[in-house]
């Protein structure tokens, strides 16, 4: 034990002896610094992407609006009217949600409340497979099966070859896993203690699921639905193929109608000279679509925040 030096630490190696001083001064680690900066830049690439998207859209959009008044764009009628596209998008999305919300939440409840761990391990990826099926494939399926066989033959509905109904149904199937997966996370995040509390009072599983787990996870469920909705709105190929390529305002799901993404896909491959007003229309619609999905995502994120903080 040192009596001589006030700051005389022991040499760590001997444990008993004394060393001159403990060196706690920072070592320079240039390699670390470089790596940190590289990693940091990679992380900020995502910001660059967002600004890139906005930058890529902004020039053609301003050009577009310099020639087309706002009122002509946000109109139901006219060459550049976007509202028929918006209503078509909403119509298709609504149908998709009608399919996907009950089924997605049902699947999520089954996975989190009923399935054994083993079964969940198999079932969850199986449901998630649905999200992996390429959307061209879904679109093709809507065209070649859902409309002609399911809607026209089996259900004897008077639908056209392209119609919002088929697009919405197939789109709904496609977003089931988005909703199921996120909702399942929310249900699973409800502490086990909450379930045990309910079961220990003599509630059965259904009561526990519906009265305790579901309400406890409500904001997570909301987030799941909103995210599913934004997926549906942004999906392109299914609606391009199945909903049709005719811009028209209609509230009848049996009609064909062109959605925002459908418009973008066909215009990008269409006849209009690049730089023309008609072509820039594509970017204006793209910007609107970006803004809509952005708002929805922000809403979804804020819901997720809330459910994380509850317990």
């Amino acid at each position, binding site marked *: 034990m040192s009596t001589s030096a006030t700051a005389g630490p022991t040499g760590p190696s001997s444990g008993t002896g004394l060393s001159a001083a403990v060196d706690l001064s920072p070592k320079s680690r240039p390699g670390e610094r470089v790596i940190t900066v590289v990693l940091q830049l990679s992380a900020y690439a995502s910001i660059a992407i967002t600004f890139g998207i906005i930058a890529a859209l902004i020039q053609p959009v301003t050009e577009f609006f310099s020639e087309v008044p706002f009122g002509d764009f946000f109109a139901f009628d006219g060459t550049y009217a976007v509202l028929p596209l918006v209503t078509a998008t909403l119509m298709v999305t609504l149908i998709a949600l009608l399919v996907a919300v009950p089924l997605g939440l049902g699947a999520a409840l089954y996975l989190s409340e009923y399935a054994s761990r083993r079964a969940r391990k198999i079932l969850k990826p199986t449901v998630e497979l649905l999200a992996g099926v390429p959307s061209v494939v879904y679109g093709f399926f809507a*065209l070649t099966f859902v409309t002609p066989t399911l809607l026209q033959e089996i259900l004897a509905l008077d639908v056209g070859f392209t119609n919002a109904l088929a697009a919405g149904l197939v789109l709904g199937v496609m977003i089931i896993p988005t909703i199921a997966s996120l909702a399942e996370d929310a249900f699973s995040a409800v502490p086990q203690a909450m379930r045990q509390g309910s079961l220990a009072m003599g509630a059965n599983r259904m009561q526990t699921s519906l009265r305790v787990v579901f309400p406890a996870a409500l904001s997570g469920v909301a987030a799941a639905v909103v995210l599913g909705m934004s997926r549906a709105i942004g999906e392109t190929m299914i609606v391009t193929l199945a909903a*049709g*390529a*005719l811009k028209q305002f209609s509230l009848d799901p049996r009609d*064909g109608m062109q959605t925002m993404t459908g418009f973008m896909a*066909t215009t990008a491959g269409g006849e209009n*000279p*690049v730089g023309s007003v008609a072509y820039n229309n594509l970017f204006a619609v793209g910007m609107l679509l970006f803004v809509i999905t952005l708002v929805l995502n922000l809403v979804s994120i804020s819901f997720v925040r809330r459910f994380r903080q509850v317990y």
Partner: protein
Amino acid sequence: GGDAGSDTGSGDSESGAVSGSVAVDGSSTVYPMSVAAQELLNEENPDIQVTVGEAGTGGGFEVFCTGDTDISDASRPIEEDEMAVCEENGVEYTELQVATDALTVAVNADLDVDCLTTDQLIDLVGPKATATNWNEIDPSFPDQEISFFFPGTDSGTYDYMAADVVGDESEVLRDDVESSEDDNVLVQGVSGTEGAVGFFGYTYYEENQDTLKALQIDDGNGCVAPSAETAQAGEYTPLARPLFIYVSNSSYADNAAVAAYVDFYIENLSDIAEIGQYIPLSDELYSETQSTLESIGS
């Protein structure tokens, strides 16, 4: 030529020894023909790498006039602003007509209507059209509700009908219709729906003659049925239109692969048009195209 077409073809003009790449883009209407040319050429000479895109006539001209592609397919002649871009970038080009497309107005085979005048056609499909029953077009037509099957608004076929046949400045057609980018769907729709009417390329009709009925069109000179002959002869107006390829002069001169492709294309034009399901050029038009081709170099 663009990046892909820039490697100069090697060897002599015998296509068998030429290699290099050719970039084609543009009209989805002309696309099948350019693809047929590509395929047939590759059977003889697999070393020529041709890519054919279908960005649309407008999209095609964009990349063509910046020098990215060697050849642009077009279902309409180049427009003035597009010419300006080409000029700005120093892209000189030659327009070659490669086939004739005859829009066919087809109705359900059971419908008792045979001929429409051009005005009646406009009354039927134009943007101001309101008729929902055939007898509103002409009292002699049957009392039968009309169903419409139109191509997508971005297709060349739609544009042609809207801009050139109907000629309304809004360049749109009536919108209470069913529509698809897939002509096949239209064919099925018309053949499967009572009182249906639709329009699409002549060959789609030709293939489905048994289930469809093509309307004759009276453009003031009596009813004319769509056919290769009437289209070639210029009698089937106003529904017949020319299809083009635009060839970059410098690519043709500098890139043997481009020259080989274009030469092959024009040499086998009638076969290619047939595969592409269009009406081949009349002899007169064909020799015109050939002589234009010969003039590219000079």
